[in-house]
């Protein structure tokens, strides 16, 4: 997919989101005008309006560019594998859904699991999975890192800040 086509899809999705916000979310979840000051819906409408206007404008730019069939800049002709350079200035590139899922799913599972099996077990398991996903295959090191990190964060939270760690506790 070329970058210009990807942007086109993104703009269309944003327009859809704005229409949903303006037609349903803002009227439904904003208090009624109390009769003084500005309406509570004004600022949300203005902010969504700006997004909608800019998305429509971008769509026009993209449309004109596609319609007139001007030769697009090099980076728009074929979507690059990765435009990122070592300096970290730009991170525009192809979305790697498999990678994203490999980090996000264990993270979401940690949030759910921590409420049921407690901080210790959930964190230990999460760190094992995370290190495996990153590419660690040295099992002793992986287990040690998981144990040490779990323990250090526990001590820092429980005794350093006096904050109870989330979920049921196996040592209390």
């Amino acid at each position: 997919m070329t970058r210009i086509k990807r942007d086109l899809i993104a703009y269309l999705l944003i327009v859809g989101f704005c229409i949903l916000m303006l037609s349903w979310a803002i009227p439904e979840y904003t208090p009624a005008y109390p009769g003084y000051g500005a309406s509570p819906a004004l600022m949300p409408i203005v902010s969504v309006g700006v997004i909608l206007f800019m998305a429509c404008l971008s769509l026009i730019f993209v449309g004109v560019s596609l319609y007139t069939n001007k030769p697009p800049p090099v980076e728009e002709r074929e979507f690059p594998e990765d435009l990122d350079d070592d300096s970290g200035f730009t991170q525009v590139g192809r979305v790697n859904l498999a990678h994203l899922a490999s980090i996000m799913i264990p993270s979401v599972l940690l949030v759910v699991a921590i409420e049921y099996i407690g901080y210790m077990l959930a964190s230990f398991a999460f760190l094992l999975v995370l290190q495996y996903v990153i590419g660690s295959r040295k099992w002793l090191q992986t287990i040690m890192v998981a144990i040490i990190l779990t323990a250090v964060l526990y001590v820092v939270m429980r005794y350093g800040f006096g904050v109870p760690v989330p979920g049921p506790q196996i040592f209390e």
Partner: protein
Amino acid sequence: MEMIIAGLLDSVSPASLMFLLVGVGVGVLIGAIPGINGPMAIALFIPITYYMTPLTAIGFLVGLNKGAFFGGAVSAVLLRTPGTPEAAATSWDGYPLTQQGKGEKALRMALYSSVAGDFISTVVLIVIAAPLAAVALFMGPAEIFALISVALTVIAGIGTSSICRGLMAAGLGIMVGLIGTEPVTALPRLTFDVYQLGSGLSLIPVAIGLLAFSEILLQLEKIAGKGGGSHAAIAFSKKLEDRLLSFKEFFSNIKTLLRGSLIGIGVGAMPGLGAPVASFMSYDQAMKRSKKKEEFGKGSLEGIAASESANSSVVAASLIPLFVLGIPGNLAAAMLMGAFMIHGMQPGPLLFKENAQLMYGIYGSLLLASLFLLVIGRFGLRYFCKAVNIPAMILYPTVVFTCIMGSYLGKSSMFDVGVMLTFGFIGYFMRKFDYSYVAFLIGFILAPEWERALQQVVIISEHDPFMFFQRPVAMVLMALTLFVIARTFWVSINAGRKKRVEAAAAAAGQHKSD
């Protein structure tokens, strides 16, 4: 005078000194690790500051930021992998020196230039912020509303190649910032019946998600499955003249250093430009004015002095718009603004009136942070060099887990962890699709103040739509907002046209040669 003395005494209390020292040390260490920068470090450490006094907390975070700015030079010089974007120019001359075995000399030049730039900029901040804030006190809600509008439009251009996408990101940030209790009716707005949203989204999980978690998602993409690995060992020459920086070498670059500091102060004081701009501008000026132009890019100490003095002087200078107007000039200032708000203070001109003692305490901490940076950098340089070799297998799980637990720490709520993950996910797509997360975050932080100013304008003027035309400063600022938008559009359209013409010419040339 009593306030000044009391404030300065607060800044030298044992707790303040200890946390300031720890902040600078941790900042240098974190900045030295490629991929972790100052604002990200502030986001990760803000939850810890919940448990500190306001002065200790702000001192710690300022120290962290100052340390990270210098730390970025360590990996830039040793690996040609800038720890922070602003250190990129440092790597152009620092790395060639490392290849010649003179890495330690390059780092010393970077350290002294950083400290000098930072110190000069802190003095300028101290001298001009309070008088400017006194002038800013005459600004009413109309001017504040107009000023935030200008700031948002200027900032919308940061971190993206398109002003449209920048404004979309700022608009989304404002909308997210409006979630919670509406100020006039005190009723929930856009909460979707989720009771945890009643008090709005906390800055900490949003900032950690956008700045730290999404960045780690991107960095892991490059190394996942490859096992990470460490960099090659860095060899320093054992000759003293290759390791140490002589007085002559330092003072021969003093003009460049001063020029860099002034450029950094100018750039830092203007919202939206940021340290990379200062660093490149200073490097460019140094190269143009140097008698040894040919040495630039091959290991010139002058190049390092130019880049480091400029980027470090941005740190304190970016606090000028924050302290004077309550407008964060860059991401680090935005995070510091969040820290002020967490501790119950609203940055802006009233800060000097309502919290004078605290402000002088912060000034004391800012000056002490420069001193600590010099001491820590001078004696710990060789140890910080080892930070660039922390294995990815240990670094990334630690950062990810700290993101998760740091989000929990603020309110002891797993809901905030969910918010952090959500914004990490959004941040990943924003970066990939070239939407400015900086504009989003600053819009999110400024939204409540923007709305408050608008409500005051509407109530005071009794719904008079011409209120802005009756206030000359507000009118000028609103006109400036429109000018900034129009100019940015014009520049980006022209740039796009130029690109297309060049591409067409290149394609025609290719066709001919075929």
